[in-house]
């Protein structure tokens, strides 16, 4: 069977599974549509949350980020997992107790203000739309690489599949397809990692193999990697970071952003009890960690494999790295996977010094003494996970599995985001703010139409990515962390916080964060309009625009408390509402107004 047929079989079978689940789990009521009926088991929800959370970026890009950045990019690992600790302790159980359907529901009711609700809706939509574009383009890339269709067709195909199960199944359909997608993606991610760890270190468990001895050279794997990359002028893989303040703030921004992202929070509205919301957060992190603990192993091992593919003499025990560096492989003798990926343009070779060999090194270092005239190879970080099975010579079905896994990761996150967007429109905007008299049936129809509309919008933006599409980390995490997270937390932990304080805080956090981002990345992300060049010298106190979400959150808290302290305390019934969300007793299932 050809590789194409195998890929088609795996992807087709996974689609049949998702659609089967969608037919089985149709939504019969708004409660089914928004919170899957409120009866999802905490472990099931944990698994669905993991798939909801782990996007195309986690599946495809994370290992590449670690491979290229080494220790410095540990921020992503800690930030995207540590957020679940604050979510489990500061938000999820109380929002579950509150028992409504959406995040703006809580902000609007708790701060007795439709203005606050509207600010929350706007923040939610900006964050989720930015995020969903990346999923659509990610699915498009996976389709075009593995199914040999054009990118455009890939995106339309992804949209159609999501449409089928999200519009009919709502949160109920999404929940159970996410469980299936989690299983597909984790199996696809783990199998090649186990093989590679075993090949390189003899230890089949990647997270242990990474810290074991590299079989071929007899020295620890990470030390081997440091030796190899530094011999080629790259920074040591495990090198420490100088700007610790920025590293701390970036990690913190990713953490508060994670905790404040609405598509993650609403997953915890689907469990039956408050205690379940706490357990479920723990299970979600267990399932996420299965991938996140493996990713650094995949990153480091793939980097080493890539280097020793180009410089075969560097693989074993090396006395003199300078000498080993003189003998990279001939371009004509490059391996088969190398050729395949060259076709996609994600690996490119340019023989600058015309010696027929591949010189792959850090251009910033001068190696004219070695007769090198410039780096000749560029490798896109995103291919490391996708090419892993080919690099390790694994059978064709593993490649088919990776294709299905990458698509599952993109679709599951897209569906969760689309639900957050459509429920903000049909529930918060239409039902709560515009037409409270709308019937259950009318709201269901509105929910389905909003979902369809959101999918069309996401497809359009996936096909024509606007400037902000690449800014998921800055924009989605910045806004969720600086605006939504503090408002939610103060709504629970401060009985004194009032409407004026919350609105002022959210706007201050949002505006400061956007201003800081726009200053360096361009106004509204239009290239060339940035006020200051985006270089560390220009950053205030060395804080990168991506790390500013945490500062925005602090501004939010400070402004909210200042404004709240000079304005009237919230009415008595609101203070009672805050009291009631703090105690699990009497929660019951999520209810409508």
């Amino acid at each position, binding site marked *: 069977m050809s590789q194409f047929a195998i890929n088609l079989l795996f992807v087709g079978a996974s689609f049949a599974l998702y659609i089967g689940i969608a037919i089985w789990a149709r939504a019969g009521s708004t409660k089914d549509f928004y919170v899957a009926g409120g009866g999802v088991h905490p472990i099931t929800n944990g698994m669905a949350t993991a798939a909801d959370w782990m996007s195309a970026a986690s599946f495809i890009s994370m290992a590449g980020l*670690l491979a290229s950045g080494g*220790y410095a990019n*540990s921020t992503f*690992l*800690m930030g995207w*997992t*540590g957020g*679940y*600790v*604050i979510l*489990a*302790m*500061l938000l999820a*159980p109380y929002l579950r107790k509150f028992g409504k359907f959406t995040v703006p529901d809580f902000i609007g009711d708790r701060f007795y203000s439709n203005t606050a609700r509207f600010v929350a809706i706007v923040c939610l939509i900006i964050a989720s739309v930015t995020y969903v574009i990346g999923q659509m383009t990610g699915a498009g890339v996976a389709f075009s690489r593995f199914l040999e269709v054009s990118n455009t067709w890939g995106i339309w195909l992804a949209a159609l599949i999501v449409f089928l199960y999200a519009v009919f199944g709502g949160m109920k359909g999404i929940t159970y397809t996410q469980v299936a997608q989690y299983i597909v993606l984790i199996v696809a991610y783990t199998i090649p990692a186990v093989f590679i760890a075993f090949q390189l270190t003899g230890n089949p468990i990647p*997270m242990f193999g*990474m*810290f*074991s001895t590299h079989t071929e050279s007899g*020295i*620890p*794997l*990470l*030390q*081997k990697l*440091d030796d190899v990359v530094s011999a080629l002028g790259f920074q040591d893989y*495990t090198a*420490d*970071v100088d700007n*610790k303040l920025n*590293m*701390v703030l970036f*990690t*913190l921004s990713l953490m508060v952003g994670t905790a404040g992202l609405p598509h993650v929070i609403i997953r915890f509205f689907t469990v039956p*009890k*408050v*205690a379940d919301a*706490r*357990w479920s*957060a*723990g299970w979600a*992190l*267990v399932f996420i*960690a299965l991938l*996140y*603990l493996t990713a*650094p192993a995949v990153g480091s091992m793939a980097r080493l494999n890539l280097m020793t593919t180009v410089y075969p003499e560097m693989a074993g025990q090396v006395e003199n790295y300078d000498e080993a560096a003189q003998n990279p492989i001939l371009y004509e003798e490059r391996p088969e996977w190398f050729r395949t990926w060259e076709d996609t343009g994600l690996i490119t070779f340019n023989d600058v010094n015309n010696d027929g060999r591949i010189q792959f090194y850090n251009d910033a270092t001068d190696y004219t003494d070695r007769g090198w005239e410039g780096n000749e190879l560029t490798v896109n970080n995103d291919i490391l996970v996708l090419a892993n099975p080919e690099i390790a010579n694994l059978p064709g079905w593993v490649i088919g599995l990776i294709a299905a896994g990458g698509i599952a990761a993109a679709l599951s996150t897209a569906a969760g985001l689309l639900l957050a967007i459509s429920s903000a429109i049909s529930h918060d905007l239409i039902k709560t703010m515009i037409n409270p008299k709308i019937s259950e049936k009318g709201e269901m129809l509105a929910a389905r139409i909003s979902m369809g509309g959101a999918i069309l919008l996401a497809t359009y933006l996936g096909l024509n990515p606007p400037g902000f599409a690449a800014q998921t980390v800055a924009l989605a995490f910045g806004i969720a962390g600086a605006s939504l997270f503090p408002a939610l937390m103060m709504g629970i*932990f401060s009985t004194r916080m009032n409407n004026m304080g919350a609105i002022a805080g959210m706007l201050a956090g949002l505006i400061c964060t956007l201003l800081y981002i726009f200053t360096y990345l361009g106004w509204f992300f239009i290239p060339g309009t940035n006020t200051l060049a985006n270089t560390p010298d220009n950053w205030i106190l060395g804080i990168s625009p991506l790390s500013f979400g945490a500062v925005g959150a602090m501004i939010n808290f400070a402004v909210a408390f200042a404004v709240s302290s000079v304005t009237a305390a919230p009415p008595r019934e609101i203070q009672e509402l805050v*009291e009631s969300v*703090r*105690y*699990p*007793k*009497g*929660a019951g299932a999520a209810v409508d107004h």
Partner: protein
Amino acid sequence: MADDKSNAAEYWKANVRLIFGCLIVWAFVSYGCAILFRPLLAGIPVGGTDLGFWFAQQGSILTFIVLIFFYAWRMNKLDKKYGLEE
């Protein structure tokens, strides 16, 4: 009624104390061991690198999992102790 109120207030205080304790550990392993104190831990070797690197890529995540389950377990006990469970 007054008893109920002070009971509930005590439950909330116990919860906040527990959260505070857990978040100290949360910050210590990630911002502490993995980032700020990494130079101090440089002398402790772990598989070809140092303890700080291990915390940044493995240890902090493992600690986060333990923290959430520990919190859920302690809160279940508090829910029962104060008679506030569902």
